[in-house]
Structure formats: C-alpha cells, structure tokens
C-alpha cells in the first residue's frame, strides 16, 4: 500500500484540507483509501461534510466502528508520535504490504516534525503544504536544513490558499515555483467556498462543484498518482468509483 504523508512547514497552511482532498482525488481515481489523522484537535471530518462533534475511530478500531465518507475510511491516532510501535503496527495491519490499489494518506500536524521525519522514509511521497507568505518562506531554510536528504528526495510541494490578486502573494508563489521547480505539484487558489462548505456541513464537491480550490486540489491529487508507482510495479487502480460510492459522504 502506498503511503502519502501530508505535513507542512507551519500550522495553518491547510494541510488537513489538502490531505482530505488528495484522499478524495485518489479515491475517485479508483484507490481504496484510508486516511489517518494524528491531530489532537482534528478538523478532518469537516472537510467531508461531517458533524463537528464526530470523533473518528482509532486506527485499531474494528471495521464495524469505521467512519466512511466519500468512500474513504477515516481513522485517527493522536498518540502516533509517542507510539514506538506505530510503524510495526501499520505493517501488522497490512497498511504497508497489501493491495496495490490501496493507499494510506496521513495528515501529520506541522508541530510533529520529529514524527514526520520518522514516517516519511516509509512513504512513497511527502506532500509539503506551503502558503505563499513571507513567514512560510522564512521557515524554509530551517525546515530544509532539518530534513534528511533521503526525506527531501520524497518531498513535493503544493502552494495552498494562493491569493493571486495580491502582489506579494504572487511574487512569493513565483519565488517558490522557481525554488522547488518540478517538485511543485500545483497550487490551490484561495477560495471562500472552502470555509463556506465547512460552515454548511457539506463536502466542497457538493457545496460548490465549480469551486476553484476543488479543481486545483483534484489536479494536485492527479499529480500525485505517478508517485504511487513502485519500480517494476506500476500502481494500478481498480477504476473510477461509482458515483454512488463517491457520494457516500455522511
């Protein structure tokens, strides 16, 4: 099972939004997706149109306790960073070894940098979510300095919440684009539909099907697909999910 780690340089970059929509894009591409959040204060369910009071089941909870939205099995493991058996547990649960059409998307809080460094070597891709803002740019040297070369090789970037009507935002985005080159998978435009969908307790795809952010996030998900390949073993999906399956958001 390919593992994708979503982690940002700093909090508030929109990592959970990106992770949720990458998971949805992969699911729509035919993958059987499990999504795992490590955030103690978790907003993941909101991106699936779920109730804010919902608590996601543990990674180790039985299937009958599963919360499935948009065809994605949503799980939580808030103590993963302190769990020395986390990686072996993933293996025992079959997340690292089973079907090629299965994908695990992890949403790792920005503050858990040590944990992110630990888990990225087990992934096929690390999606680093950044904002085109000066404070994010200022953190870049430190973050890159702390990363191991091996982890950097797995790292791709996405610019989230890009406001192209602002001069500094455009310039910062251009700077990032030049800085990371082909590692930039795309950008997601700032879109008021995103918070509006959350406030409406609807997934973005239902609240605003023509949302610019939704379109951009799907493109990022599509750009991630080639990274699911293993040498000699191309990743293969079962085929696009049916509309009924894709609209199972609770």
């Amino acid at each position: 099972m390919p593992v994708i780690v979503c982690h940002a340089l700093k909090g508030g970059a929109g990592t959970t939004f990106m992770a949720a929509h990458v998971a949805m894009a992969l699911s729509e591409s035919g993958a059987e997706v499990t999504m795992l959040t490590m955030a103690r204060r978790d907003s993941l369910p909101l991106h699936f149109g779920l109730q804010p009071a919902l608590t996601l089941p543990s990674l180790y909870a039985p299937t009958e306790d599963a919360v499935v939205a948009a065809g994605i099995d949503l799980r939580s493991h808030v103590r993963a960073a302190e769990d020395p058996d986390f990686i072996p547990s993933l293996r025992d649960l079959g997340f690292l070894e089973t079907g090629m059409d299965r994908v695990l998307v992890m949403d790792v809080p920005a503050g858990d940098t040590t944990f992110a460094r630990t888990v990225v070597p087990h992934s096929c891709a690390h999606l680093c979510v950044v904002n085109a803002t000066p404070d994010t740019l200022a953190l870049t040297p430190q973050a890159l300095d702390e990363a191991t070369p091996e982890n950097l090789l797995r790292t791709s970037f996405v610019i989230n919440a890009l406001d192209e009507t602002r001069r500094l935002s455009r310039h910062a985005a251009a700077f990032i684009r030049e800085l990371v080159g082909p590692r930039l998978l795309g950008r997601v435009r700032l879109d008021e539909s995103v918070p509006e969908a959350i406030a409406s307790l609807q997934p973005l795809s239902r609240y605003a099907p023509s949302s610019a952010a939704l379109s951009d996030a799907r493109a990022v998900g599509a750009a991630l697909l080639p990274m699911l390949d293993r040498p000699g073993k191309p990743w293969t999906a079962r085929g696009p999910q049916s509309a009924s399956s894709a609209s199972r958001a609770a």
Partner: protein
Amino acid sequence: MRIDARHLLDRLGRNDFAYKEFEDRFTELELWPMFEALLRDPRLQMLDAAEGMTPSAPKEEVTHVAPAEPFGALFNRYGRSGEDAESPPSERRGAQPQDVRAMLRHLSDLGSRGEI
C-alpha cells in the same frame, strides 16, 4: 480579457463589471529583501548533501522515484548566466552564491513567455 472571464460575464448577462488582470511584474520581486536573504542562506547550500543521492527504497514496501535535480542545484542556478542555466544539473554544481538579479531576469523571461 480572458476568454473564461468573457464567457462568465456573457452567461451572467453583465458587461459593466470592471475587469483587471493582475499581471506579474517580476522586477518588483527585487523589492522584497527576504527573497535575497533566503537565496543567500547557507543552510540551503547544505541541501547539496542530497545531490547525486539515489533514492533508496522505503523502509517497508514503497519506493518513490524522485526528481533528478537536487535542491542544491535548484538554488545554484540562480547565480548562473542564462547559458549556464541551460546546462545539466551536474554541470552546475559548485555554482557561486546566488545572484538575485539573474533570478529576476529568469523570472521575467518566463513571465514574458507566459510560462509562469
């Protein structure tokens, strides 16, 4: 006016909206000292450690084929002339500290070609 904007206004039946394209003026990038400071940050040069490294298999089952050009080379190219920027990454190793003006020229060229 962009064609998609024209179509949208046509669909809305409104032709009295003010329309403005936010064109990038890359020369204005020079107004931001942070960009220059970042390009000169020695910690970014340490990324050369990743240069030439072959991506190893993940510790479990998964392998990711990484882009061929390492971070160090990406940063180094800002300090090279236009011809050097065309050379392969391996030939750009050891480039001198970055020249922000060269980067801005490059950005400006990309902008004029509509590639950015």
